[in-house]
């Protein structure tokens, strides 16, 4: 049955894909009309990778609860679509490798400063240069933190906590990091030696692709009460760090795609796409994968913590600002799987929630949020492109009910990297950005062309669609001033 016959508009920005065929639950897609039109066009043209087909596939996995969900930044991924969420019953359900992907707990940390734009404007060039020199970025870059095997195991067990215990940060950084920067149940024994050896020289490195470090200015406050709780104000200078679990996470993903394929066969599951390989949550294989993912997640928290330390040093060198004045507003991942309690049809249930290219977005009164944010819910950090804007959003009760408390993670790509590299020229992107007052420092002009702002969907329309459907609300809009790319 063609999907277009069965995608039903529920209300503004919310669509339902009724249960059909192998689907065990319906699909719920939150997106604007343009995005839906593009998704349907891909279906009609039978493109090899269709995000709608991936929503349908996720909806057919064992033990899925409620709906297979996709958010406004939906685009094709591996197994799950990017912007995809799947929650599973802890007894009947499965843990799915494609629900997390290769870059485990890739995410964004937002740091606030007490400075306003005019105070750093004269130093932008120097700041860019200092950050570019200080924070290892790009393919093949190495970090300064050298760890022994037992130290790396400690880092995998305790995440950002380990980095702070080494003196690279403050207790407050942990308070304002998702999971306090330390996913429980991490077991380094289930992470391959290869994954660990690939990581030794990569702690505190930014990576490349869509990863970045930005100095941004808060251009507009859209929700004063929440902004006040988060410590954000108009014209404020903030910094944003987007990176993940580096080679360790990549190797865990690669290793477990293989291991979980055997589990899938052993438990008699048939999956329509290899990246949907899975195992029962309470099986030995499922538990091993969850313990490995927790290590990857901790590695990502530790990585962002280490980069925070480097950023503080660079800011101190140039501006004389004390490291403690750069406060962690929040650190949140967008490729993860976690046990959470949600109200489903009036019953509190423990679920395993996968978010691939989607953040947790808990609204008010959840114990998981830092106490200081509990009245409004924790911040959701949405990374834009280097030429447009980033956003801070907050969760809502509607979002808790409809998306298991999940939020968008970025603009979402519109053009393939191939098309972008053909359409944009790295040097031109750099000079165009400079004419808009954005200083770009990069190790790869080819990477810049692929990541050109024009290769992404309009962040405004993505945020608008999310707001229209009521699943999140905008708090603040930030615009980049300095961009460091790998």
């Amino acid at each position, binding site marked *: 049955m063609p999907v277009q016959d069965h995608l039903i508009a529920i209300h503004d920005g919310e669509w339902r894909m009724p249960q059909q065929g192998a689907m065990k639950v319906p699909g719920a897609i939150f997106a604007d009309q343009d995005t839906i039109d593009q998704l349907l066009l891909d279906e009609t043209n039978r493109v*090899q*990778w269709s995000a709608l087909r991936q929503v349908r596939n996720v909806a057919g996995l064992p033990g899925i609860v409620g709906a297979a969900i996709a958010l406004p930044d939906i*685009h*094709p*991924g*591996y*197994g799950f679509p*990017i912007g995809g969420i799947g929650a599973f019953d802890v007894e009947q359900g499965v843990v799915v490798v494609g629900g997390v*992907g*290769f*870059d485990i707990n890739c995410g964004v940390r937002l740091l606030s400063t007490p400075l306003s734009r005019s105070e750093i404007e004269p130093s932008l060039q120097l700041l860019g240069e200092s950050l570019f020199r200080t924070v290892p970025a*790009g*393919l*093949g*870059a190495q970090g300064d933190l050298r760890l022994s095997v037992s130290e790396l195991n400690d880092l995998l067990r305790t995440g950002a906590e380990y980095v702070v215990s080494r003196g690279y940060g403050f207790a407050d950084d942990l308070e304002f990091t998702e999971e306090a920067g330390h996913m429980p149940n991490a077991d380094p024994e289930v992470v391959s030696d*290869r994954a660990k*050896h*690939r*990581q030794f*020289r*990569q702690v505190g490195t930014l*990576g*490349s*692709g869509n990863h970045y470090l930005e100095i941004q200015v808060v251009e507009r406050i859209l929700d004063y009460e929440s902004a006040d709780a988060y410590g954000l104000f108009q014209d404020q200078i903030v910094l944003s760090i987007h990176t993940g679990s580096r*080679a360790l*996470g*990549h*190797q865990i*993903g*690669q290793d477990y*795609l293989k291991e979980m394929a055997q589990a899938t066969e052993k438990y008699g599951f048939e999956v329509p*796409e*290899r*990246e949907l390989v899975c195992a029962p949550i309470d099986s030995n294989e499922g538990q091993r994968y969850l313990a490995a993912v927790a290590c990857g997640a901790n590695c990502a928290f530790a990585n962002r913590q280490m980069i925070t330390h480097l950023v503080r040093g660079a800011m101190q060198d140039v501006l004389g600002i004390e490291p403690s004045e750069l406060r962690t507003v929040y650190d949140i991942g967008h490729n993860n799987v976690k046990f959470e309690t949600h109200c489903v049809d009036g019953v509190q249930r423990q679920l395993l929630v996968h978010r691939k290219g989607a953040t947790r977005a808990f609204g008010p009164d959840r114990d998981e949020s830092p106490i200081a944010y509990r009245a409004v819910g924790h911040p959701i950090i949405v990374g834009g492109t280097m030429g447009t804007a980033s956003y801070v959003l907050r969760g809502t009760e509607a979002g808790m009910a409809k998306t298991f408390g999940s939020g968008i993670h970025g603009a979402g*790509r*519109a*053009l*393939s*990297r*191939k*098309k972008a590299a053909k359409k944009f020229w790295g040097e031109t992107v750099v000079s165009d950005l400079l004419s808009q007052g954005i200083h770009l420092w990069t*190790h*790869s002009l*080819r*990477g810049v062309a*692929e990541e050109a702002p024009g290769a992404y969907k309009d962040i405004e329309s993505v945020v608008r669609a999310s707001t229209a459907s009521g699943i999140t609300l905008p708090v603040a809009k930030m615009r980049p001033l300095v961009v460091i790319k*790998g």
Partner: protein
Amino acid sequence: MTPIEWLDHTADMGFRATGDSVEDAFCEAARALFSLMFAIEEIRPLVEHRIEVCAPSLSELLVEWLSELLAQKDLSRLVFSQFSVTISGNAVSGFSATGQALGEVLDRQRHQPGTEIKGISYLGLDVSCHDELCVVQVIVDV
């Protein structure tokens, strides 16, 4: 037909590599992988690295082959530009690849880093051989 054709994938990168034999196609795929990451013409064949991998099918063998080469960038800091491989086995007992990669230690100035590859996916993965023409297709996570 050019040995490497780049594919359109919204989020990531893909390629189709063609060779006269499955071995040739595997080597072209390896060249494609390193071309995405570096200016491959700048990688000198100074160091030899041996690769031995096995898998139940040819397509899974391709993932193993490329993953092994990719990991060396972090494990030994080696990057490669020339490849040779011998593939043996069958669908019943599985396949193995024994090969060598020639390259040198990564030099970020000279090798002009492009985009980091996070992993070799199974999405759209394909190895097809007909009439002495082999085509392999891979999508890599960026």
